[in-house]
């Protein structure tokens, strides 16, 4: 057993990769082309209106001046001017409303595209995680996966919402401004644009710095999530050891590191924002100086310079926004990289080409020289295991902790694929089954049960949610749980807390048995699933199941020999190898490890 501390963040260090991330996100947003179209149109319209308003106000001043100058004059001019004033007032109202409405449309469409993409990503992520195989999930921490699902999806969403529409808008605004300035006065135009190369350079370097900072920060937040997640999951251990302070210290170290990264980010951001707008102002100052001298020398009129500076001040706001958007870009590309790294994974256990939905009707099971090694491990956990069970028969497996019993169980529904030797059900290699049909036919009652936060009923019907009520009741009856449930005030609707905290150990295991029985499998594997159930209850369960599962092939893994003595065949496993096998009586006659174990378990009885 070796640890694969694999971090999945395939870091896109090259600019090229972050370009790919962007094109991918942009491609996603092009699905909403109408929203995009209307959103961008709305930006232009609202900008148009907001530029129109100062113009109108200027007109109003002129009109008032007219009124004043014509004070002594004719009534018609006064009325004209007055009417003009009213008209301007009317236009002002209209353009204000227009500005507001179109701003609303553009902001809303931006958010709407962002939310839709967020939704899509979430669904894709969920689907992918459900399909990734056990070996993948064993190697990553759920805290990391949860962080990606919460924070990175959010990062991309924010990027789409705030950046995509605006980039198109800003580019066209700056383009127009540039065009106007260059055509008005080429010399001043060039001077006034002298800040552009600096901004471009600054934007790139800052974005790169920010991106690697976001990567580091999101990774750190993943570790933080992991720490908190483990703490909440292991809360009983924490309380039992009064380790609250210890846990806080553990958390604080990571939190401080993350805070340091955040602070770093703030300073990169602050620098780039202030430098970029200052660069702009400096070019403006130079324009003022050079333009002022040109005016004085008479080569241009003051009006021209005014107009020129007016064009330039249109650029002020976009330039400021570039500073802000750099961060959004950096976060978007870091988050996108982290999320796509997972979306692009292909589960290594999947339906093989040509696999079919096979209906298992008999349920014989055979291992032929099966070997298996955990990923990254340097020795085989299962070594050359061969056995055969006929339909309806029972196989028992015993062995010390870590001998590979659960591993064998996990190979049958293809949670892992063996490295050698086929596994056959009804003489068909299990890789010829679709995963779905295979897992319907084979059911493992896991050693560590997992319950979902739902009612008892929904937990029992988890694998067969269309089952009628009486099926659920029957299964609980078989698992000796019915009596307990009937005593509960809300009976089957009682909530099972997270991972089943509100149940006792034995109740959890019985619920897990009931859940598996509900699935009507052809092959059922009990992996030490009665360890916390008293043997009396266990015997009852077994008797109930006997009639129900007479045609079901059964594997029982247990440390309690009384649980599997009746099996047709028993394997004694040690270090991944079968060391003894046979029926109970045959094994006793062998006078080997099995007999030792049997004697040990019966000593207690004999000594009284």
């Amino acid at each position, binding site marked *: 057993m070796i*640890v694969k501390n694999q971090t999945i963040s395939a870091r896109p260090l090259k600019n090229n990769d972050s370009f790919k991330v962007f094109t991918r996100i942009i491609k996603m947003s092009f699905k909403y082309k109408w929203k995009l179209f209307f959103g961008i149109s709305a930006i232009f319209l609202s900008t148009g209106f907001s530029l129109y308003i100062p113009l109108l106000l200027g007109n109003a001043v002129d009109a008032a001046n007219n009124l004043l100058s014509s004070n002594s004059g004719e009534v018609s001019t006064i009325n004209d001017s007055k009417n003009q004033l009213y008209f301007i007032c009317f236009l002002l109202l209209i353009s204000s409303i227009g500005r507001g409405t179109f*701003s609303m449309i553009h902001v809303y469409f931006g958010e709407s595209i962002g939310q839709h993409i967020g939704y899509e990503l979430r669904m894709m992520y969920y689907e992918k995680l459900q399909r990734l195989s056990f070996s993948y999930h064993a190697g990553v921490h759920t805290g990391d996966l949860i962080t990606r699902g919460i924070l990175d999806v959010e990062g991309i969403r924010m990027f789409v919402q705030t950046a995509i529409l605006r980039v198109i808008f800003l580019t066209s605004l700056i383009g127009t401004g540039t065009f106007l300035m260059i055509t008005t006065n080429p010399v001043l135009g060039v001077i006034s644009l002298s800040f552009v190369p600096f901004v471009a350079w600054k934007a790139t370097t800052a974005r790169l710095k920010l991106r690697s900072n976001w990567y580091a920060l999101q990774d750190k937040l993943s570790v933080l999530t992991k720490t908190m997640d483990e703490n909440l999951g292991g809360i009983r251990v924490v309380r039992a050891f009064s380790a609250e302070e210890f846990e806080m210290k553990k958390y604080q170290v990571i939190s401080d590191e993350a805070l340091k990264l955040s602070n770093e980010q703030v300073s990169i951001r602050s620098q780039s924002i202030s430098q970029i707008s200052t660069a702009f102002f400096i070019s403006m100052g130079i324009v003022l100086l050079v333009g002022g001298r040109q005016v*004085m020398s008479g080569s241009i009129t003051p009006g021209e310079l005014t107009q020129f500076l007016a064009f330039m001040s249109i650029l002020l706001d976009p330039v400021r926004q570039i500073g802000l958007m750099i961060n959004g870009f950096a976060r978007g590309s870091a988050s996108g990289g982290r999320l796509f790294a997972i979306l692009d994974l292909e589960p290594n256990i999947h339906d093989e080409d040509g696999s079919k939905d096979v209906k298992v009707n008999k349920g014989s099971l055979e291992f032929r020289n099966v070997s298996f090694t955990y990923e990254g491990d340097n020795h085989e956990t299962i070594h050359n295991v061969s056995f055969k069970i006929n339909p309806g028969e029972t196989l028992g497996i015993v062995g010390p902790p870590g001998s590979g019993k659960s591993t064998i169980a996990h190979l049958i529904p293809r949670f892992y694929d063996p490295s050698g030797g086929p596994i056959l059900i009804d003489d068909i290699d299990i890789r010829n089954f679709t995963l779905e049909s295979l897992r319907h036919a084979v059911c493992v009652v896991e050693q560590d049960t997992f319950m979902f936060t739902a009612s008892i009923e929904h937990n029992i019907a*988890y694998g067969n949610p269309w089952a009628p009520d009486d099926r659920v009741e029957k299964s609980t009856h078989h698992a000796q749980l019915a009596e307990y449930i009937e005593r509960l005030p809300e009976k089957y609707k009682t909530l099972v807390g*997270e991972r089943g905290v509100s149940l006792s150990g034995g109740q959890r295991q019985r619920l897990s048995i009931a859940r598996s029985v509900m699935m009507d499998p052809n092959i059922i594997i009990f992996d030490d699933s009665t360890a916390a159930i008293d043997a009396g209850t266990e015997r009852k369960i077994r008797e109930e199941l006997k009639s129900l599962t007479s045609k079901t092939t059964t594997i029982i893994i247990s440390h309690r020999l009384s649980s599997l003595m009746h099996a047709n065949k028993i394997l004694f496993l040690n270090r991944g190898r079968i060391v003894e096998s046979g029926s109970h009586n045959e094994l006793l006659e062998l006078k080997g490890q099995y007999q030792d*174990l049997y004697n040990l378990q019966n000593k207690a009885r004999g000594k009284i």
Partner: protein
Amino acid sequence: MSMKKFSERSHEIPPKASVVLASNLEEEVFSEKFNGDVIKRFFSYVKPYKRQLIPALIAVIIFTITSISIPLIIKNVFDSTLSGDNNNTNLLYLFVAGFFVAIIFNFISNYLQEILVGRVAEHILFDMRTAMYEHLQSVSLSFMDKTESGKLMSRLQGDVAALQEFLHTAVFAIGDFVLIVGIIITMLWLDFRLGLLTMVVIPALLLIRIIWIPFARSAFLKARITSSIVSGALAENINGVRAVQGMTREYVNYDLFDLRAKENLRAALKASRIGVIMLPTVDSLSGIARGIVVIVGGIFVLNGEIETGVMVAFVLFIQRFFDPIRALTMHYSVLQRAMASGERIFEVIDVPVEMKDKENSIIMDDLDPSIEFNNVTFGYLPNQPILKNINFKIKPGETIALVGPTGSGKTSTTALVHRFYEIWEGEIKIGGVNIKDIKLQSLGNNVSMVLQEPFLFSGSILENIIYSTKNISFQKVVDAAKAVGVHDYIMELPDKYDTQLEQRGENLSIGQRQLISFARAIVRDSKIIILDEATANIDSYTEMQIQNALKVLLEGRTAMVIAHRLATIRGADKIIVLQNGEIIEQDTHENLIKNKGLYYSLSSLNYSSFDDIPNHIIQKITNSTSGT
């Protein structure tokens, strides 16, 4: 891949399926816990950074002033140097120099405001998360039992991240606010009546806002809650992915998740609609205000009541006045969104801590490790007692065994010794002192437990065995590992004790996990040790070795052992038989045999394990003994 696309499936929601319970559970758990003023609470987190904020505020003011003065300087350049025929080059240079000075101030203040406010904002975010997390360390277990960690996670990460957006825009909001105040003062000073007229729309704006807030609040809250449900569902599915794949629930879960995600999408879009509706509102109002100024100002000019210059100034100011108001409106949506998150954060912080150390609480280190239950009654849910009238006494150094069928209350009894839950009636004493008077921390230092469900942390095996125990030598760790028989296995691993474990120790077999959690408990050397089915997943041979090692290890310690196997039980000084939350019998092994009561009858039956006895026989024996 030939796996069918999820979208090709029929989207029929099965009758017996749900993905993470609807918000009602969450509402129930957190209901009415928080009803304070979010903003006020928020400021208590700002307070510690007063010192950084004062310079930040100054920077904001300087920045605002320079931002306004830069266009003014340009205007002056025109007015004084370029417009007339007085071509004064020196004046031009002077103004340009002034312009550059303004730029420098602008640059410095811009940088300072960004970095100071930004850093304080980050600190506040981290402080709030830490406060939440720290609080969760001390809230009662019964609260934690009811709460999904996925949803807590969504508060710890998602809501904190949502606040971040707000804090990032805070610097602009402060600037805008400063600007508005400045403009209002200037306008009133220029012409009081016109100034007042301009502000006529502000009450209207406030009124609309008052109507708007409740809608916005509930919409943003709904968006956050649905998002937290989505995160919770995601988290649960990741945690239970083995069960999901084992029972091929992928398709059903996908559809259920889709429902939740769509619900969240709808809620978010609705919140967004409610947020943006303020834009045309503010703009219309500002249009009205501008219109008023134009007409009334024009008439004033006409009547000669004000000069044209004043009107020009007004027209300019009114432009500057409504832009920050508009910007603030946008921030206001962000603020409302942040309030929703803030509320959810404070809800966590406000969950009452039911179990607190009393004043003058006693440190357990000096007490003898005797345990006494006097008429203890306890249950998890109201009116459903799980343990009824429990009485027993364990002398220091004794080992007692708790036996009984599943669900009889064995684990619950041990949980009470550690005060995981508060009892309803009666009292529990350790060393003759009521545990309510003992310092919680010292309880944890002196009572170590092997829980029924082995839980390991990610990290090395060594870290796991030591866990929070202080001053432990490596030799002690090795001794503990040897005692539970896992040392040999560890030494076979390439990295030995430094082998990294995955979360929950998933790269170990269950038995191995149980052994390590066993080692973690005995390394602690505490006076009281509780073993809850510590060897349930371990073979009899290893168990026998552990039993032998324990004989030495438990010397002088008080132990409570829950076990199935007779070998373990018989060695105990006293055996307590539990059934349905009641003690049926308790005594030493010898006495129980001598008394020829229940235990005697049970032991003489031909079962290899105490629990092997079918219930109907227990029933029969119980009936017959209670008769005598």
